[in-house]
């Protein structure tokens, strides 16, 4: 069997004294798109933060492997360099840091860490322009400080732009549909779909089935009370939409 892109084994996580993740097991093979659905507070966002390496959480047991590499000992920038990318539910506004400066620093940091030559400015500009055009991101938006004054839709498109530029192996999209109107949702989904590839896996976290009409998953996992309660095909999302999460709470209990 080939190495899965992402493997989460019996992950237990607490914050303060409260256990949020209670033994998550998850395998995302190479090239597949998996969805995690679950109600608010079920631990979906915690899982995405823990995978990306946010500090506030105490990992009490478990293991996370990205393409066979153990992640939990790495800091967030090392995880990114290893190929992980988290598209934030609420991208952070950073005044005083120009978007272009940030994009270039991020791309070159990763290249440097991988032993590749840094991008020249013209190459960088070309890459941003071509990735930006598809997402309707104009030069004016890129001139502003990072995420500052961006609308909800612009922030999400900027996340996908970063994803397109950084070319990660494993993308986690945390509630990428939240705050988007129909048109913006379509645009973002098209951006994501364009990045689907046999070499790249995705984990799409959402609590609405709506997003999954646009980004069609190979597998759907239902998250309940800090663990995966059930997994199935994309029809599982429709079932959830019809019946709600109550049935799965029992399965998890």
């Amino acid at each position: 069997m080939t190495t899965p892109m992402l493997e989460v084994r019996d992950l237990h996580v607490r914050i303060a004294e409260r256990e949020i993740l209670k033994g998550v097991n998850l395998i995302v093979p190479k090239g597949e798109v998996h969805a995690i659905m679950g109600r608010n507070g079920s631990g979906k966002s915690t899982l995405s933060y823990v995978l990306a390496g946010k500090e506030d959480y105490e990992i009490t047991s478990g293991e996370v492997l990205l393409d066979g590499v153990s992640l939990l000992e790495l800091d967030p920038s090392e995880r990114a360099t290893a190929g992980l990318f988290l598209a934030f539910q609420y991208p952070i506004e950073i005044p005083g840091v120009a978007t272009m400066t940030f994009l270039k620093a991020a791309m070159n940091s990763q290249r440097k860490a991988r032993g590749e030559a840094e991008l020249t400015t013209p190459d960088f500009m070309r890459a941003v322009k071509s990735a930006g055009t598809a997402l309707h991101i104009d030069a004016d938006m890129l001139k502003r400080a990072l995420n500052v004054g961006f609308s909800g839709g612009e922030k999400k498109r900027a996340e996908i732009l970063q994803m397109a530029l950084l070319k990660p192996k494993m993308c986690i999209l945390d509630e990428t549909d939240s705050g988007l109107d129909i048109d913006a949702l379509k645009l973002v989904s098209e951006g994501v779909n364009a990045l689907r590839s046999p070499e790249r896996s995705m984990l799409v976290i959402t609590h609405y089935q709506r997003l999954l009409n646009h980004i069609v998953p190979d597998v759907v996992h239902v998250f309940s009370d800090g663990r995966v309660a059930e997994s199935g095909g994309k029809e599982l999302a429709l079932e959830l939409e019809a019946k709600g999460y109550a049935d799965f709470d029992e399965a998890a209990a």
Partner: protein
Amino acid sequence: MRVPVRLGAAENTLIAQLQGAGAAAEAERLTVTGLPTRRVEAYHYTDLKTLLRTVPPLAVDAGVAGAPALDVTGAFRVMIANGRVQSHGTAPAGVIVGEAKGSALTERDDVLARLNSALASETLTLTLEGSVDPVIHIDRRTDGPAAHAPSSARIYLADGASATLLETYSGSDAAHVSNHASFIQLGKGARLTHITVDLSARKATHFATGEYEIGEGAHLRTITVHAGAGLERTQIFARFGGEGAHADFTGLNLTNDGQHADITAEIRHAKGHCTCKPLYKQIARGRSKAVFQGKIVVERDAQKTDAKLMMQGLMLSDEAEILSKPELEIFADDVVCGHGSTCGKLDEDSMFYLMSRGVPKVEAETMLVRGFIAELFDSIEDEALNEALQGVVDGWLAGR
């Protein structure tokens, strides 16, 4: 009966120096008061009696060579070395360079200003007319063995003149006590950007006093940067003496382990319809102390004053101290005035966000620190100057 203060080595040296300079009254005054302690409000966070232990001998002429601490391409440079005005190149159009005896400061009840007034032997004078194109750079140095060096400059902007003035302070690696003074007058409608940057050696002590007289409709921007001496204090005394003027007073304390940096500003609105927006930032690392005191005084006749004072602090270590004291003293009844002060660490969410894109920790910190400072330098149009200032920040970040 008044109990005489106990005088330390620094005070005794200063008294002898004042006597030697024929300033008997000043010597007598210092004998009675001593250097200010924390009980003197203006020196509450910078107790000179404790911080200034010794004062070296008064500076003598020193042969100065070498590049300036900040080399700004295209600038017109005049040097004051150990208090003496040095010969200079041909002044650009609209710039008249001269010299005057004594200090440029007005009489003022402040020990550093008084010491400068009593001890500065000469003043560089600059008269600026029309639109002065190149950056004017006053390169002040204290060189040779440890010296107490008072220096002085008077800058006059004629009505309608505009200029960018950079002052840098640097010198040899010795325990100097430099005491610089600038008196700056802006005529009607004049526009000035005045940038002062302390890049003295860590062993040195740097004092600077800037007096500003702002004329009707004038436009002033100041940027004070402390990134050098172990003990630094810049005092700003500004007065709006005509209506319809605007000033942005800004500054930056950058401190490393063992340093103490203090910016103390008093802005006086004597005439109405003036606006000012003081914005000061402080970043402290290691076991260091950064101090900002800002006071806006609005006199009875200064109606329609619009003033907003802001201090923002960033602490990069647990041992760092940032002290901030904004004050408003308002005697007019139709004004808009406000003040604010914030202090904190680097935002963890921002750090996580940057790092989650592959930016290593140290580089992410650097980006956030630069971002924190960015608005102070944004308005500097001269590219070489902007780059030079950015270089000062980068030097500090790299652990200068």
